[in-house]
């Protein structure tokens, strides 16, 4: 059993992503949504933290597109999903934890 974590704040403005990554278990999933998707951009401190985290990372494609972040800009190891994938993640995990 595991937890789906969602992060909706930019890591360049707030520490929520760092804190979430530090508390995610290996079998958990972390989904970046809304301004949280900025954390998926390759070559940043946030991307390094994501790479170092031992958990599963996803980012919502619609929120990336809305912000003009092309999928080529997304760091390796981050899985781009759409709303149907979001729904799948919710059903696959025991609980959802929103890092507000």
């Amino acid at each position, binding site marked *: *059993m*595991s*937890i789906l974590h969602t992060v909706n704040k930019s890591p360049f403005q707030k*520490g*929520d992503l760092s*804190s979430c990554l*530090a*508390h*995610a*278990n290996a*079998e*958990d999933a972390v989904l970046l949504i809304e301004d949280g998707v900025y954390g998926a951009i390759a070559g940043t401190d946030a991307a390094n933290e994501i790479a170092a985290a031992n958990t599963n990372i996803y980012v919502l494609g619609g929120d990336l597109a809305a912000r003009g972040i092309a999928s080529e800009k997304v760091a390796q190891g981050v899985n781009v999903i759409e709303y149907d994938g979001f729904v799948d993640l919710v059903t696959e995990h*025991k*609980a*959802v*934890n*929103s*890092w*507000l």
Partner: protein
Amino acid sequence: MSDESIKKFMYMNRKAPYGTIYALEALEVVLIGAAFDQDVSLAFLDDGVFQLTEGQNTDGIGVKNFSPAFRALGDYDVNKLYVEKESLEARGLAESDLMELVWEDEDDDWAEKPSIKVVSRDELKAIMGDQDVIMSF
């Protein structure tokens, strides 16, 4: 109430008490939720640890000091308050800077026991992974 219907609820507190309304609202939700006989715990991490400091006095800011309400939690069988050690240390705080919160154990001749348990980040991570419901504030 049968055991199957009891779920593990964690209320996660990550914000300081007076800058935003989150902390007060979280405490209100916990007090309301306490009526439902669930397995409730509270986690305090990041700036959330500031909610539990001893000696809060809001006279100078015209806002209600809601910290005494934490003392009521024990009477509602809410007696697992996990405080993250790393978050305390990063903010120059120690357990001795926090309010003394207790609950009375009816199975142990109503002995007063501490409600606050300082845990490491790894311990909190494991406790979090064990929850059925997490409400984050």
